[in-house]
C-alpha cells in the first residue's frame, strides 16, 4: 500500500481530482458498454415478441 491514510489516498498528493475524474470516466464508459447492449437486447426481444403475437392474431 502506497498510502498511510484514506485522506492521503483520496488526495493523491494534490493530483486527486485528475486521477479520480479519469478513473470515474473510464469506469463509466466500461459499464455503459456492458449495460447499453443488455438494455437494447431487452427492448429488441420485447418488440419482436409483440410483432409475432400480432402476426399470429391476423392469421
Amino acid at each position: 500500500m502506497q498510502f498511510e491514510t484514506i485522506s492521503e489516498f483520496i488526495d493523491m498528493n494534490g493530483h486527486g481530482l485528475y486521477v479520480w475524474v479519469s478513473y470515474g470516466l473510464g469506469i463509466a464508459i466500461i459499464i455503459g458498454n456492458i449495460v447499453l447492449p443488455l438494455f437494447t437486447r431487452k427492448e429488441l426481444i420485447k418488440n419482436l415478441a409483440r410483432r409475432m403475437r400480432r402476426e399470429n392474431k391476423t392469421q
Partner: protein
Amino acid sequence: MAVSKWIPRWFYQLASPRWCYDITGKLLPVFLVAAALLLLVGLVWALAFAPPDYQQGNSFRIMYIHVPSAILAQSCYMLMAVAGAVGLIWKIKVADMVAFACAPIGASIAVMALATGAIWGKPTWGSWWVWDARLTSMLILLFLYLGVMALYAAMDNETMAAKAASVLSLVGLVNIPIIKYSVEWWNTLHQPATFSLTEKPSMPIEMWLPLLVMVLGFYCFFAVSLMLRLRNEIIRRERRSGWVRELITSR
C-alpha cells in the same frame, strides 16, 4: 460448400449466424468473469499499490487506464477493418455484423483514451491539449469511428451500408501505423511506446505488471461488449428465420 481439410470446421461455422449466436452465448460468461476479475485486481493495484512515479507523482496512475484504452481503441479499429474486408470479399454476413458492433465500442474507447490523456496532460505538460502528431492522429481515429457509425445510420440498406463502412474503415487503416510511429517521426511531448514486443519495458516490474493486468482486462471487457452487441445484431437481422422466432417464443 466443399470443406477443405486444411481449414478447421469452426472456421466455416463462424459464417453461420445461428452457430455464432450459440458459441458467443457459451463464451460470454467466461469472458465476463475474466474481465471483472482482471479489472478489479488491476484497479486496486494501479490506484493503491503501484509505486508513484519519481517525476509525476500520483498523476501517473492515470496511465493505467489511458494506455489500455489507447491500445484497445487501435486494436478494435483493426478488427473492424479486417471484419469489414472479410464481409466485403466473401460476403459473410456475420463479418459485417462484427464490424458494425465494433464501431460504437471503439468510438467510446477512443473518447476514453483522449479524455484521460487530456486530464493527464494538464498536471504533466501544463496543457489539456496540444496539436501534436500523436494526439491529432488519435483524434482522427475517433472521427473515423464516428464516420463509420454515421454511414451505418445514414443507409437503410444493410448490405450497402456495410460496403460503404468497410471501404471507409479500410482506407482509415492507414492511420494506425501513423498513430504508432507518430512519437518517432515527429518531435512530440508525448512519451514513446510503453510496451514493445522486442525490448524490455522501461519501467520497473511493479509498475508494468498492473498495466499488463489492466490491458488484459480491457481486452476481456471488449470481448464481452462485442459479443453482446453482435448477438443483438444477429437477432435483429435474422428475425425472420425460424430459429430466432423459436428463441423469442420460448422466452
